[in-house]
């Protein structure tokens, strides 16, 4: 219902509703039983609920902007998470020392642990708002990258601290252990990434050979990613990062290899799984709000809330100040403000809080309550207000046009830049990317991809456009309405006008052939909206209609290839009605440009 009613997402993020529902369910259970409702435990969360979410995030990640900004993202996420955790933890410890609050039994470690837990950011709601407002790419990427890496980092920290606590109970911790903790952090993190990449390659390799058994392709994808997660966890390295790396690596090659059906299956299934997990988590959250698991302590809770906000703002401004020195296009104050405001907490912190082992944490309930309060606050208040804030601040927007021209120009620009850099003898990450691409093309793609099809993005965009054009030609018949290339939305929403009589087998062929080659290439950021390839629907409709009209055309004895009657007052753009249809590689019909062709 949430998605159907369009006004609602503008008002509040989905998480709000989910929590509300959960709370409602909790109330019902509580009222009927007077018992605390059923809750999660470690294994369910970490084994079943978390992986789908991570997988989906990694798989649908828009790789190019991510890697372009990777320096800033890494610099922001890693030290940011650390700064936040330690900052909050230490400050809370300071607060706890004050006798009046009755919190003095919370020692340093516990506070640090709490700090790391509570700094797990879950900005899904913020991302949705951003996407809707089409904010500029850099900003989007920062938050996205942060959310991706943040989960991994906080879980790692969490585990480290738990290990510490278990080790030493309440004794002193030696500095060697602290160092070991740091080392572990890096090993776990990097190890996870490497692990995931290896798994990604293996699965890509396997998909190369599955052309005859395409039904198991989705299974392969899911299995391998899950496997990477599990095996990483068994080896005590970060499963989350492993899975993310696996998904990213896999995607590039697997996408090329699998059949169209598998691809769709994978997409939808992944989205479904992650939606299910997320919903469950939020519902659990709502459910456990109502119950006896609480302990309220004004000081702790209010300070937690305050400190979360303060530390986030501090870390944002401090880190970005430094990062701006290295960026050609620094983040403005507005950007930074938005970033600090979008620190919504969500399911991760809650789960981590819930899973604290009871024996080590006599005041676990306090933590849970505090976490819940923070989550509620951030989700409801910040979640609801971030939309208006973004619009009010008028953050710089992105310009996503899906036009061939733009693609060509951007591509030209990339090459131009790389060329100029070569000439200057300068190095920058375009070179790096070029080099990676070369390496990729030479070795990796040969090994991992089935048949090397031309997957240049220009080509796929072009094919898309060709289909649109073909559809338009079939539909309009007389006049082409002006396609506004500023947004291809208008093309998709074109009402089907009257049918042109005629169409020949060849056109159907072209469409059918191309339909199975073009893949939707737009990145899908939103967890819940898959960019539906609406042209498919239109094209299928066309196919059906053409079957009808074919009979008509036979009667009319049409001989022109696209059935354009010579006498229709048709808008000819470039006197090239036959032009676009040739891309299917059929050599039979050469494009014959009329005499006016060259002068256009």
């Amino acid at each position, binding site marked *: 219902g949430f998605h159907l009613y369009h006004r609602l997402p503008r008002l509040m993020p989905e998480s709000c509703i989910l929590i509300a529902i959960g709370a409602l369910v909790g109330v019902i259970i509580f009222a009927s039983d007077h018992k605390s409702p059923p809750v999660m435990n470690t294994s369910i969360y970490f084994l079943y609920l978390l992986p789908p979410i991570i997988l989906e995030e990694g798989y649908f990640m828009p790789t190019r902007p991510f890697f372009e900004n990777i320096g800033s993202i890494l610099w922001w996420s890693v030290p940011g998470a650390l700064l936040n955790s330690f900052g909050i933890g230490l400050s809370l410890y300071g607060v706890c020392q004050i006798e009046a609050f009755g919190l003095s039994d919370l020692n340093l470690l516990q506070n640090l642990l709490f700090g790391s837990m509570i700094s797990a950011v879950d900005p899904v709601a913020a991302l949705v708002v951003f996407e809707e407002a089409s904010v500029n790419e850099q900003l989007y990427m920062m938050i996205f990258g942060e959310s991706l890496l943040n989960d991994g980092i906080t879980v790692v920290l969490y585990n480290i601290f738990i290990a510490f606590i278990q080790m030493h109970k309440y004794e002193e911790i030696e500095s060697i252990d602290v160092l070991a903790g740091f080392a572990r952090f890096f090993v776990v993190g990097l190890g996870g990434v490497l692990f995931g990449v290896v798994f990604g390659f293996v699965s890509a390799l396997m998909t190369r050979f599955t052309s005859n058994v395409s039904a198991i392709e989705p299974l392969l994808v899911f299995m391998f990613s899950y496997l990477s997660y599990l095996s990483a966890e068994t080896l005590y390295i970060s499963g989350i990062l492993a899975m993310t790396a696996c998904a990213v690596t896999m995607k590039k090659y697997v996408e090329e290899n699998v059949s169209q059906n598998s691809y769709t299956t994978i997409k939808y299934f992944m989205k479904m799984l992650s939606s299910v997990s997320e919903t469950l988590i939020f519902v659990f959250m709502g459910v456990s709000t109502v119950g006896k698991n609480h302990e309220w302590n004004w000081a702790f809770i209010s300070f937690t809330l305050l400190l979360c906000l303060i530390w986030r703002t501090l870390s944002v401004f401090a880190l970005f100040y430094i990062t701006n020195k290295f960026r*050609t*296009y620094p983040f403005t104050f507005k950007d930074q403000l938005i970033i600090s405001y979008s620190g919504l907490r969500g399911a991760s912190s809650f789960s981590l809080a819930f899973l604290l082992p009871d024996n080590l944490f006599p005041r676990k309930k306090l933590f849970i309550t505090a976490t819940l309060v923070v989550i509620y606050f951030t989700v409801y208040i910040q979640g609801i207000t971030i939309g208006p804030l973004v619009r009010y601040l008028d953050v710089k927007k992105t*310009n996503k*046009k899906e*036009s*061939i*021209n*733009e693609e*060509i*120009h*951007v591509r*030209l*620009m990339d*090459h*131009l*830049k*790389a*060329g*100029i*850099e*070569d*000439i*200057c*003898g*300068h*190095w*920058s990450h375009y070179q790096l990317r070029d080099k990676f691409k*070369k390496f990729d093309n030479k070795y990796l793609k040969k090994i991992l991809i089935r048949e*090397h*099809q*031309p997957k*240049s993005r*220009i*080509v796929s965009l*072009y094919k898309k*456009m*060709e289909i649109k*054009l073909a559809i338009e030609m079939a539909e309009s018949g007389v006049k082409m309405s*002006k*396609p*506004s*290339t*500023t947004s291809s939305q208008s093309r998709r929403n074109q009402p089907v006008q009257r049918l042109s009589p005629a169409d020949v087998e060849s056109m159907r062929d072209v469409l059918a052939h191309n339909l199975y080659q073009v893949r939707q290439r737009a990145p899908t950021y939103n967890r819940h909206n898959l960019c539906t390839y609406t042209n498919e629907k239109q094209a299928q409709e066309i196919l059906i209609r053409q079957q009808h009209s074919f009979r008509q055309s036979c009667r009319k004895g049409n001989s022109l290839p696209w059935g354009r009657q010579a006498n229709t007052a*048709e*808008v*000819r*753009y*470039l006197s*090239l009605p036959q*032009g*676009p249809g*040739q*891309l299917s*590689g059929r050599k039979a019909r*050469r*494009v014959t440009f009329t005499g*006016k062709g*060259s*002068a*256009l």
Partner: protein
Amino acid sequence: LSAFSPHSPVTSEQIEHLHRRFKQLSRDQLTIRKENFDSIPDLEFNPIRGKIVHAFFDKRNLRQESDGLADEINFEDFLTIMSYFRPIEMNMDEEQLDRFRKEKLKFLFHMYDSDHDGKITLQEYRNVVEELLSGNPHLEKESARSIADGAMMEAASICVGQMGPDQVYEGITFDDFLKMWQGIDIETKMHVRFLTMETIAHCY
């Protein structure tokens, strides 16, 4: 250098670096010719290599009154070309920004318009697309041409809108080009970051 100072503070360090590079390329001569660009190994792999080198010698880019191609360029010309790739400064005002943008776009336009007639015709556009896609051996020439055709159509629709049945679209003029680029952020894309890595420069 006088061409520079009113526009931007390219630091003297950068100029020095470029000068060293220029000397390397020209083998200590005062001018560079097209052949000197062959000595850059990485440039070989660039699909639009020809156009880039050509751009250096294009008199329109060198802000000279005449047209056509220069045979050789000196350091000042070299710098002039490089100046098209400056990043924008934070303290530029609207008019400067606009001018800056136009300059960059003009540079690009010249890259497309190889016969210097002020219009990008279908043939020239096709040329560009073919070159861009030349790195991909599996793509047929015909596809490249069709793509260019499609792109031209799109351009026509942006620039001219609805056309009568007998209208013919001559080619993309600079104003049309500007229109196409409206909304796309060229300033952020078209710049070269001057991170100096001395070792790389010495590799050549």
